[in-house]
């Protein structure tokens, strides 16, 4: 493993942390993507603008990154798996009150025991899922 990608990972992590901290310091909000987007389904009056603006920021950042360095287009799973996985990610992050950003970055950063439990659970289950699909059931899913 060469050093450079790991340094990029660290720098990207620092930027993720800074942007999330910015939302807390400026607006007092938790930068949890599943919560921000899930709060639009269904939309609530008076609570729409900042959520759409955050989503626009994510998309805008994606467009810039795609223009500069390219985003991946080949997904490592079949379409049926993407549908099942998407449903689980959407329902699960709402039921569990957060995803990698809300629990992982903001929750762990605040020392929340609920977030620690959530992160240990979803990471542990994800490790297990990859182990089963790649090494027990064999091949790409």
């Amino acid at each position, binding site marked *: 493993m060469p050093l450079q990608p790991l340094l990029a990972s660290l720098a990207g992590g620092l930027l993720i942390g800074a942007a999330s901290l910015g939302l807390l310091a400026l607006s007092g*909000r938790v930068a949890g993507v599943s919560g921000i987007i899930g709060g639009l389904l269904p939309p609530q009056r008076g609570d729409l603008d900042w959520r759409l603006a955050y989503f626009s920021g994510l998309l805008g950042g994606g467009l810039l990154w795609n223009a500069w360095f390219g985003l991946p287009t080949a997904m490592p799973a079949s379409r049926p798996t993407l549908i099942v996985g998407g449903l689980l990610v959407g329902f*699960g992050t709402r039921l569990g009150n957060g995803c990698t950003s809300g629990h992982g970055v903001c929750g762990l950063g605040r020392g929340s025991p609920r977030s620690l439990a959530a992160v240990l659970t979803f990471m542990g289950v994800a490790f297990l899922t990859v182990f089963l699909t790649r090494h027990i059931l064999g091949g790409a899913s």
Partner: protein
Amino acid sequence: MRSSLIALGCGLGFALGLGLSGMVDPNRVLAFLDLAGDWEPNLMFVLGGAVGVYALGARKVLAWPRPWDGLRFQVPTRRSLDRRLLLGAAMFGVGWGLTGLCPGPALVNLAAAAADLWIFVTAMLTGMALFSVFNRFAPAR
């Protein structure tokens, strides 16, 4: 207006951080989650950097009387664990392990307009909306 500009900027920074960190590539996420394969430690650097910055900053920020733009901090205060948290996190873990995609990177990747990714995001948003329906009939106590 001001809260939307803040959200836009923070979402943009967050997305660029995801790009720089490599988290936008589900193949690299799965390489981290594949402990028994050709393991990449990338995500430890991403999460370490992000949580580190957030933890250092949040300690100071949350001691302020209020955020820069807003009356109060809207931060979860509950500390006890419950079944929903753990079950939701576990569902998310399965979906994440199957696809290598979590909500933030999935939405940033919309910018590349890849059909497979759009399928995942549609399923994810459907899962979130299904949760809203579920939550109406079985609200958390």
